[in-house]
């Protein structure tokens, strides 16, 4: 039940308007309202709660119950800037209160120390924007711990010899091991690797108002019906609302940040559900709209003062997009795993987190996990081994035999930041509101593809060591569909080479802040949300300090 809300008027000059209620926006709303500020969160999607969530794969997957709709908000794609982009679905994100954290898989790896300083360690990589972060792991460590304890992450501290230092153990034990995890753990150890219980943003023990995981099996792409998945909806939004100072305003599609003659943000303009336009006034604006919509909103907000888009004096808004590299291999085993039961992942390893580029011949690193995360219809449509009959007795026999006996090895890895990989405004295509559509320009760096191929070879070794009766891989190809949306308004100290500073403040607009996947400088090894949330907790501290000393004044 939603509490009685403070219904701010749009003319109320609230302390903060936050655009987006996802992993970062939800946490910033919680922290800033807890710190005494008046906050309005504008979320373009609807306000659904646990009772609205369903296991129905058609409704969720086909009808985009929780995600951006390709017909209302179409995209275009091209590989390189010299091509004309063609209409195709190119980006997927949560479009609901809670954002993508509602439907994510909930893998919650911390970044390691190396992720922040890798450029210094290994040197430049020609043709890329590969660089160090302006903050270190040590700066972020207290906030990783905060995420684990406040949002709810299960795991086992010290289980991986490659883990970075931590100030506290996890607040709750890991989730139970699945058959895929046992197979993975035993085979990885046989090969000399170091598997460990996956840290997951899913409760293994109940918390007030939230159940522990009931192992229903509908995690990836679905909203959790018992509040066990630590989405910002389950873990932050309600806390924010209960302060009495935060209003979550759903169905509010922000399309412009307003700027006064002094170059200060004055609020956000949005369409409501009836497509009526409003402007919510605020003393400061924080955009947490994800790595695609945040740069789009800045570009849409271009005006005479900022002809190339807001906060874009560097020309880097939307650029250096990183999607994370990846590969998947499948194995079929003799006995039933029944891996459709439970959350997706129970075991991972990080032995290849830092590969030696001198030895392997390319830059990169990553982690592997054991999982099963596909729905029944999805399984029948695309997860039987190549060569399986597509209909008839052979098809049915394969469904019957394989569904309970199949597992995946998912390889997650780095992406290098390239200036040519970007989100921008399509010059022709418009969305249902008449706004320029998102255009994705993306071509993987060759090293990203080499890394995916290399990791996938390890996955196949593991499946052999595990005694899989059958194994195969999905082809490794250049990406043209964006899910992890990273790096498009990168953090840095130099206004010429970055969009935000270490306080998440834009270099160009004093009371405009950005915090979400767009803030990342490097891609990590494939699981960004934990870091996005740690950044959000840290940003809340920084912004609170700035606000308290009146730093938003012109």
């Amino acid at each position: 039940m939603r509490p009685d809300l403070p219904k701010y008027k749009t003319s109320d000059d609230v302390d903060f308007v936050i655009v987006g209620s996802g992993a970062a926006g939800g946490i910033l709303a919680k922290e800033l309202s807890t710190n005494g500020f008046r906050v309005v969160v504008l979320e373009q999607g609807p306000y659904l709660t646990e009772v609205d969530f369903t296991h129905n794969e058609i409704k969720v997957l086909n009808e985009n119950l929780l995600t951006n709709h390709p017909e209302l908000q179409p995209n275009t794609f091209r590989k390189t800037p010299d091509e004309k982009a063609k209409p195709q679905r190119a980006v997927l994100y949560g479009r609901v209160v809670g954002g993508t954290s509602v439907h994510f898989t909930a893998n919650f790896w911390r970044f390691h120390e190396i992720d922040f300083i890798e450029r210094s360690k290994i040197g430049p990589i020609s043709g890329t924007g590969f660089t160090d972060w302006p903050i270190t792991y040590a700066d972020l460590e207290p906030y990783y711990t905060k995420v684990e304890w406040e949002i709810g992450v299960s795991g086992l501290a010290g289980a991986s010899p490659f883990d970075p230092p931590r100030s506290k153990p996890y607040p709750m034990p890991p989730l139970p091991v699945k058959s895929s995890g046992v197979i993975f753990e035993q085979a990885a150890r046989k090969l000399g690797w170091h598997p460990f219980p996956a840290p997951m943003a899913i409760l293994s023990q109940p918390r007030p108002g939230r159940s522990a995981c009931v192992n229903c099996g509908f995690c990836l792409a679905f909203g959790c019906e018992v509040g066990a998945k630590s989405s910002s909806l389950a873990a932050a939004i309600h806390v924010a609302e209960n302060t009495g100072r935060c209003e979550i305003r759903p169905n509010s599609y922000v399309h412009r940040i307003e700027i006064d003659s002094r170059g200060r943000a004055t609020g956000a303009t949005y369409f409501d559900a009836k497509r009526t336009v409003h402007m919510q006034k605020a003393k400061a604006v924080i955009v947490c709209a994800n790595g695609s919509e945040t740069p789009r909103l800045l570009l849409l907000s271009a005006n005479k003062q900022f002809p190339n888009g807001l906060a874009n004096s560097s020309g880097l808004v939307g650029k250096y997009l990183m999607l994370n590299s990846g590969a998947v291999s499948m194995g079929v085993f003799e006995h039933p795993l029944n891996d459709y039961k439970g959350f997706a992942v129970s075991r991972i390893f990080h032995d290849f987190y830092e590969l030696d580029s001198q030895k392997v011949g390319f830059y990169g690193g990553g982690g592997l996990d054991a999982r099963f995360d596909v729905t029944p219809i999805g399984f029948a449509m695309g997860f039987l081994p190549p060569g399986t009959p597509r209909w008839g007795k052979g098809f049915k026999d394969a469904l019957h035999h394989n569904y309970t006996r199949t597992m995946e090895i998912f390889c997650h890895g780095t992406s290098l930041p390239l200036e040519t990989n970007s989100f921008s405004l399509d010059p022709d295509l418009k969305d249902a509101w008449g706004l320029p559509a998102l255009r994705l320009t993306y071509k993987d760096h060759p090293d990203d593809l080499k890394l995916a191929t290399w990791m996938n070879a390890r996955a196949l070794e593991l499946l052999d060591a595990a005694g899989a009766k059958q194994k195969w891989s999905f082809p490794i190809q250049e990406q043209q569909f964006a899910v992890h949306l990273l790096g498009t308004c990168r953090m840095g100290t130099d206004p010429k080479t970055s969009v935000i500073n270490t306080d998440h403040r834009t270099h160009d607009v004093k009371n405009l802040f950005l915090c979400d996947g767009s803030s990342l400088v490097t891609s990590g090894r494939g699981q960004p949300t934990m870091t996005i949330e740690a950044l959000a907790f840290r940003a809340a501290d920084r912004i609170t300090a700035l606000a308290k000393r009146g730093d938003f004044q012109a």
Partner: protein
Amino acid sequence: MTNDLSRRSFILRAGTSISAVWLSTHWPAILSAAEHAHAAAKSSAPAKLAFFSADQAKEIDAITARIIPTDDLPGAHEAGAVYFIDRALTTFAKDSQKVYQDGLVEWQSRVQELFPSLQMFSAGTPEQQDKILHSLEHPAAPGRGRGRPTPNGQSFFETVRTHTIVAFLIDPDDGGNGNDAGWKVIGREREHVFQPPFGYYDKEYAGWQPNPPETAKGKA
């Protein structure tokens, strides 16, 4: 759509490709169709058809029954797939009506062409039926992989195949896969709450044992 690297996106796109083939935006109608199929499969009385004629329904039922045949486990016929499709074509999948209308005409001529003595596909032997289906099957591309959508050229065979799979495997709690036929076949239990052990391999798990100490980072 075909060169998608991201496995994360594929999971969602597996559904999206279905959408491209036939599903539109009226979920309540899907439920209605599913419940209709469910009721039809349970009932011995003939269900009322909304789109197909009785003969057409007989043909579609026979086609779905070759796509997912009946053996010692139920098939598409037992799941009432034809009723799901019939209801769908008058509600949320109206866009696919023409695929069926044209497809059934072509279908009839193909049946006659291959087996001149056969009046209807449904009257053929399983061997004859499979031969006809093979002749109409959309060529399965080699190396189909993640991100490869179901061919969405709205070919009759591919459309019926997709519809049959959806009708067979959608969540029975929402009224689909009549008699739980599909989930019985794949071995998925109906419950939404499970306790470990889940499968064969975690049943005997001895419990977590720490990894041996390790200092070197980067094994390669």
